């Protein structure tokens, strides 16, 4: 599969432009048949850590046979951590990308491990220049060992570290500028941060380099005791689709993917959520 093509602007900057992906859904073992049967699924995403290159799920192979792009999405590289990137995890992600003929891979702007402990969560980074330097170094190290472009996703946070020097948009923009990575914008995470931390959605979207957008995540969540939780186990809120609409007003995203990780609804409900996403994209 042609992973990416150079655009005129991108060629000048040495950047690669992601081809159109369309509308997709996260492939999960529980809903493998549902994903196969849903109409109009243009691409899927798999959680890289859940797959083994040697024995890929039959459903994933079937989707590849149909020509559906399958994008590995990692959750454990811990690129924002102070420790060096785990070469084995990067190698696994790269091998998976090659096995699936994936156009790109992705992970998050976060850390998950420190001091030998694994948090089990995507922890936000302090938005300082020191933290950015660490992130940039780790991203560059990972990119060297990856056979395809890397996209990085904004996370949902329940706290902002003190003494931040950059807004989240500025932080991501500088990350892209220094590493040539792509962006995976999760509009549900952005909405969660707007609700919980007061992130300015419009400013975020204005500050990030949307020409480097690989694709977009959409997911559901719920409010609990005044805090919005990006659960991936509830329906997508209209407010999240509004954030997608704000993004769409600025750029035609190469792809938009619905994430659902628990309490899977009926096929018809997932189809309706995909239809709602398509309606926003126009």
């Amino acid at each position, binding site marked *: 599969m042609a992973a990416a093509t150079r655009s005129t602007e991108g060629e000048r900057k040495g950047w690669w432009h992601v081809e159109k992906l369309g509308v997709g859904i996260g492939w999960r073992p529980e809903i493998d048949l549902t994903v*196969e049967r849903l109409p109009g699924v243009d691409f899927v995403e798999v959680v890289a850590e859940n797959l083994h290159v040697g024995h890929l799920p*039959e459903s994933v192979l079937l989707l590849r046979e149909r020509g559906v792009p399958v994008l590995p999405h990692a959750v454990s590289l811990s690129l924002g951590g102070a420790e060096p990137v785990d070469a084995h995890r990067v190698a696994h992600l790269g091998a998976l990308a090659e096995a699936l003929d994936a156009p790109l891979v992705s992970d998050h702007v976060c850390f998950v491990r420190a001091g030998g402990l694994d948090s089990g969560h995507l922890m936000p980074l302090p938005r300082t220049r020191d933290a950015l330097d660490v992130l940039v170094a780790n991203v560059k190290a990972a990119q060297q060992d990856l056979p395809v472009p890397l996209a990085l996703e904004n996370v949902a946070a329940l706290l902002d570290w003190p003494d931040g020097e950059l807004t989240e948009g500025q932080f991501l923009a500088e990350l892209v500028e220094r590493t040539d990575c792509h962006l995976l914008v999760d509009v549900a995470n952005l909405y969660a941060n707007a609700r919980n931390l007061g992130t300015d959605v419009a400013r975020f979207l204005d500050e990030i380099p949307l020409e480097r957008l690989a694709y977009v995540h959409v997911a559901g969540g719920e409010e609990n005791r005044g805090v919005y939780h990006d659960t991936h186990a509830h329906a997508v809120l209209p407010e999240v689709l509004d954030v997608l609409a704000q993004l769409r007003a600025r750029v035609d995203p190469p792809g938009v993917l619905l994430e659902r990780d628990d309490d899977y609804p009926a096929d018809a409900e997932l189809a309706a959520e995909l239809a709602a996403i398509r309606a926003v994209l126009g």
Partner: protein
Amino acid sequence: MATQWTPTSAGSAGSTPEPGLEEQGFLVGGPGRAAEVAVVSLVEASAARISRGGLVSAVGRPRAGTSPLGSAVLRRLPMSLGDVIIATASSAEAQSLRQYLVGSGLVTPPGRRQGMRTARRLLIAAAVATVVATIVLELPFWLALGAVPVGVVGAIVLGRAGRPLTARGRDVVKRLKPLAVSPNRIALVAYYGLLGKVERHHVWEVLGIGPAAATTLRRRSNRGGSNGGASCGGGCGSCSSSSCGGSGSDSGGSSCGGSSCGGGGCGGGGGD
């Protein structure tokens, strides 16, 4: 948690209602078959889904109107198809269903079955002992001549009396076969079991369940052990295996708890 069995079919006042599908499954193939019916009923009602790899998971939130056995299934999800059938077959709800069917006069009480089996063994032993004694002690030959037919006839009578189903229960099973046809998907499961065959196709194939999911099922022995002994009207039902069909949600891949089902451990109709 309500485990008291509630009949799944309506009946006229004052009469025993016609058995519902889970009850039918129990009569034909025991608690394992009833559990299969419960799982397939949930899938048919879009309350659960079976993945290509055999992982059964709930669809949305549990809803009202689910049978006790269906609730027992939902409580255990997500779980592989084979394992959820085994687990549900040994649930309190399955025991409650058995008690309900015993109370309805369709299933032989376990104590009575055990008593009949013991009496049969004693009778056969006595007949053999009589024959041996006749030969060894040179007793009158008519003793052996009488012991053999008494032993044979008695064993047959006691064996029939110790069957899992009562005469009424067997009559119900006989009436089920014409209803177990392809359009009636759950009735197919109740009568033949997921591993049973209809027109040279496995029932799981007819239902659209994938081969990988079917590998989590294991055929149960027709001859029950201490818990077994189904009437097995249309080929004995399936139990399950401990294998897990390609689920895996952790980096290390999936692992499913082992289970055991050999020797009729998953029971058959009317077993105890």
